[in-house]
């Protein structure tokens, strides 16, 4: 028997799935060894808008090894494909008609016995079209912009009197920023293996962040009861929002499996991943800011326009940060959409905040420069002590501490106020700052906790691990709740046969599934305790619950530690193969009276070669506060990863469509640049401790997306400080710096 047990939550532990990942044993969707699987390859449209006049599968069908070629001519009719049940559902294309909505839209599926046979046959499918001009860029159709109706989250919001506030300002700026189309490009291509049993049972091994979404959507589209669809995915090779909803390929894999009577594996290609698995839409953002003589904001107006498809609606919520991040009585925000001929965009890591903070935090820097105030001081002066949008108090906020600690770490006090004042040999250097924030929500979730006769526990929830460390963190939560060492707990996820949990998006998982796992384990421990005290054969018989502690897999009478009953013994005496509890957890009620956000401060140091236009990030220091940190190691990795995303957003990422046709020109990873090793210096993360009793049972806010917003602005601000050049259109590539 030991002394005080060190809690697993908060401990800096190796990931429990580490061995699998470093030995190649982790199995991603396309790697599940489904017997007798056939291979499917998609054929894409080569016009951007119109109709398929004719499509010929003859040569493809005759090619070696081909089992079937499915087009809109012979695909099963599925009325459910055009139904949405929830606003965030994405409509997909399932060969239901001859309409072409975007270039590269799937217009046929070729199924063959080997991948080589399928790839070759796909190139033999030909189509003729009636095409009409397609619009590639929202800026060529701004006149058609509209403000979408959304009673739950209005797209035109104002408080106070912005016009008066601007008129009263001593310093005023009006600036325009753009952020480009970006694509998620997770390392693992979207992939699905579909296997039917009988006419109406379907198993999907699908690379997804949202197994229950996939189940619900595929059941709807295929006209099946939900319980007939099972989705399994134990490891996801990254999602970043692109795997939060099932896209066309999932449906097409299921259709191909139905038509051929075989299990079918469909792996998307990189060009397909640039087009129809979601993207971050382009934004055009106009900001007007006013500042009085004391450095206080008098007014903020933020007007954004972004793109969506012609057949569905997605809004990049850029203006949320402007309404809540700083204290300002007069704020007006508008979000508009333009429909163009592309597939529907979707959430991409820190949706809304990453694009909105680029504009807001750059604009604040421009305002500070115009007013002659230090940009960090400007932010501190306008710090909001409560949520200015709702009037609610923050559940917790440590932004001022984040500023302080990160500023000290990067040496902000040695930063000259003037621009173009720092050099390192041939390079000009500069320092920039930005705030970051990300809302934190808690969704309902369920979990099942099972105690086995060995005294080991298996805890199950239908959540996902997209690299965030869910396996590890949930094992820690469960271990602490059950009083078990980490080696005696196995956490399982990724199967719709497990209790339902939310998608791994929105940084929800720690804050939603964490409490559910905790509560289920606490309930299991209670169940075991109750059996023991009721059981005359137990050394704990007759004791009251609050006289019993738990440690190392045993329940122990506090007053007499020799009286103890192990979990293993309790289960053995029950005569059952295991004792299990399944529990549903709703969102914490105390959240409703608070505004819950994570906050952070990001400081960037850059060097710029003015002659050649090259930028190198020397250092980024980010200080972040997001409530209880469940595992500092995985937390740091998440936050570092988010900052790498910010570097890519600032300097590299740009999905380009041909302006004449709307066909994607950047079709692979050679043309769509994400940061590589050489682009990323040592990145410093400061975890600011924060105790938040209101957010949920375990005090965690979630931080998967907290470190991306603000990084692009901090880099742009640093470039301005180094060179005096203000770039307002991302990404900041050499051509933009040498042309000024």
């Amino acid at each position, binding site marked *: 028997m030991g002394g005080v047990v060190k809690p697993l939550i908060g401990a800096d532990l190796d990931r429990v799935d580490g061995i699998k990942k470093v030995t190649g044993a982790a199995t991603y969707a396309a790697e599940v060894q489904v017997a007798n699987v056939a291979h499917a390859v998609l054929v*894409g449209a*080569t016009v951007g808008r119109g109709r398929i006049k004719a499509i010929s599968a003859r040569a493809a069908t005759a090619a*070696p090894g081909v089992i079937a070629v499915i087009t809109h001519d012979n695909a099963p009719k599925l009325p459910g494909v055009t139904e949405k049940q929830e606003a965030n559902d994405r409509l997909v294309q399932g060969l239901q008609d001859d309409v072409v909505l975007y*270039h*590269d839209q799937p217009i046929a599926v070729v199924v063959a016995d080997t991948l*080589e046979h399928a*790839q*070759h046959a796909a*190139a033999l499918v030909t189509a003729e079209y009636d095409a009409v001009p397609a619009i590639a860029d929202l800026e060529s159709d701004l006149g058609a912009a509209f403000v979408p109706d959304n009673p739950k989250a209005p797209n035109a919001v104002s408080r106070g009197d912005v016009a008066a506030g601007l008129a009263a300002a001593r310093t005023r700026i009006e600036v325009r920023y753009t952020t480009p189309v970006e694509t998620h490009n997770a390392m693992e291509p979207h992939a699905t293996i579909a296997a039917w049993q009988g006419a109406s049972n379907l198993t999907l091994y699908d690379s997804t962040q949202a197994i229950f979404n996939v189940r619900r959507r595929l059941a709807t589209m295929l006209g099946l009861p939900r319980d007939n669809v099972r989705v399994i995915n134990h490891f996801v090779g990254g999602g970043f929002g692109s795997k939060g909803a099932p896209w066309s390929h999932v449906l097409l894999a299921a259709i191909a499996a139905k038509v051929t009577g075989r299990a079918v594996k469909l792996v998307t290609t990189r060009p397909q991943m640039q087009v129809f698995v979601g993207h971050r839409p382009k934004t055009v953002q106009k900001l007007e800011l006013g500042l009085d003589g004391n450095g206080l904001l008098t007014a903020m107006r933020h007007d954004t326009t972004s793109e969506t498809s012609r057949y569905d609606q997605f809004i990049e919520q850029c203006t949320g940060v402007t309404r809540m991040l700083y204290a300002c009585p007069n704020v007006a925000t508008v979000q508009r959409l333009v429909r163009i001929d592309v597939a529907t965009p979707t959430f991409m890591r820190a949706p809304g905040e990453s694009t909105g903070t680029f504009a807001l935090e750059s604009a604040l820097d421009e305002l500070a420069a115009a007013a002659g105030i230090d940009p960090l001081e400007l932010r501190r002066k306008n710090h909001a002590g409560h949520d200015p949008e709702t009037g609610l108090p923050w559940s917790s906020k440590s932004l001022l501490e984040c500023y302080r600690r990160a500023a000290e770490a990067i040496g902000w006090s040695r930063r000259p106020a003037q621009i173009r004042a720092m050099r390192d040999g041939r390079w000009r250097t500069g320092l920039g700052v930005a705030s970051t924030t990300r809302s934190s929500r808690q969704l309902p979730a369920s979990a099942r906790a099972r105690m086995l006769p060995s005294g080991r526990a298996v805890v199950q929830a239908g959540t996902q691990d997209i690299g965030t460390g869910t396996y590890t963190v949930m094992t820690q939560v469960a271990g602490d709740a059950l009083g078990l060492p980490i080696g005696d707990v196995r956490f399982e996820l990724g199967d719709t046969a497990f209790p339902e949990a939310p998608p791994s998006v929105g940084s929800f998982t720690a804050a939603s599934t964490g409490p559910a796992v905790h509560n289920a384990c606490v309930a299991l421990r209670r169940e075991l305790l109750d059996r023991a005290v009721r059981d005359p054969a137990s050394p704990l018989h007759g004791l009251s619950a609050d006289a019993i502690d738990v440690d190392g897999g045993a329940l122990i009478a506090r007053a007499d530690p020799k009286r103890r009953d192990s979990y293993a013994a309790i289960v053995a005496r029950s005569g059952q193969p295991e004792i299990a509890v399944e529990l549903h957890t709703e969102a914490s009620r105390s959240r409703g009276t608070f505004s819950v956000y994570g906050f952070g401060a990001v400081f960037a140091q850059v060097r710029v070669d003015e*002659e*050649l*236009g*090259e930028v*190198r990030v020397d250092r980024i220091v980010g200080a972040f506060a997001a409530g209880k940190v469940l595992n500092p190691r995985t937390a740091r990795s998440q936050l570092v990863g988010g900052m790498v995303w910010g570097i890519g957003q600032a*300097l*590299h990422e740009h999905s*380009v469509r*041909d*302006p*004449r*046709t709307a*066909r994607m*020109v*950047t*079709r692979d990873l*050679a*043309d769509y*640049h994400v*940061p*590589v*090793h*050489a*682009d990323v210096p040592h990145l410093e993360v400061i975890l600011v401790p924060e105790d938040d009793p209101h957010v949920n049972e375990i005090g965690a806010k979630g931080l998967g997306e907290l470190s991306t917003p603000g990084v692009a602005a901090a880099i742009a601000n640093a470039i301005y400080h180094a060179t005096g050049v203000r770039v307002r259109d991302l990404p900041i*590539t*050499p*051509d933009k710096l*040498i*042309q000024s």
Partner: protein
Amino acid sequence: MKPVTFVRPADTRAASAAAAATGACVHAGGTTLVDLMRLEVMTPTTVVDLGRLPLAAIERRGDGLEIGAMARNADVANHALVVERYPLLAQAIAAGASQQIRNMATVGGNLLQRTRCPYFRDLGVACNKRTPGAGCSAQGGFTRSHAVLGTSASCIATHPSDMCVALVALDAIVATRSGDRTRAIPIGELHTVPGDHPEIEHVLEPGELITHVELPASPFAAHARYVKVRDRAAFAFALASAGVGLDLADGRIRGARIALGGVATKPWRALEAEQLLVGQPPSRAGFERAAAAALAGAKPVRDNAFKVELARRTVVRALELAWGAS
């Protein structure tokens, strides 16, 4: 990919004969061929693998160096003789691609690599290089990565090689064999500009195999530099690059070499620019004049106009660094 028949000849004569057949392509490192076969941009029915040919040696030849066509790029860049006597070549190779690709790619393959133009690589759009007469989809489209030198109305695709820029600056000779016939082609004459026939990229006959590259003795080793500007710090093609060498004596430039990458339809030697430097003392002003001359014939289009200024500055930077090197 189309189905293929695979042959692995044991000697160069057999390889040349196999490669001359209709529908045959040679396979060296595979980094161009397999990439383009998978896109069905190249569609051979026979793949002639050169892996058994004894063409990988890197050795002295008189005052110069002979590099076998099957020598891996990484081996060339790391070879002591190359590092010591042709540092420009080592720098250029090291600036290209990735560790993995440099380990796979061969000298011969690098010489004959194809453009990275996204319209060439996309079967969904028209391309004169793939299908003569079909039209050029790049012009009028997104042309940020396209060429400003050596272009024509049919094609503006950039030659993407770094290694070739250095070889062009170093007066390399490309030795070939076709059956019993051998030739020695000065590298400046190996590649062709698109003109009216962008589908033709070099002067080799069907079945004519590159066997090795000869580098003459070079006076530029002490003052040479390859500068490459790109959109990220590694693993990206050049927005503009310059490979230069200076032969300095008595405070004057006795000889100069200036070659450009990332901006032309073939590896580009700037002869007039070199002539402007000869006899002059090295100076920034002189370098700027030479750089301007190197880009004098540039024909930018809407998205790549920045390349003209960027390439000039890259040439100046390379010359300054070469001058300072010792």
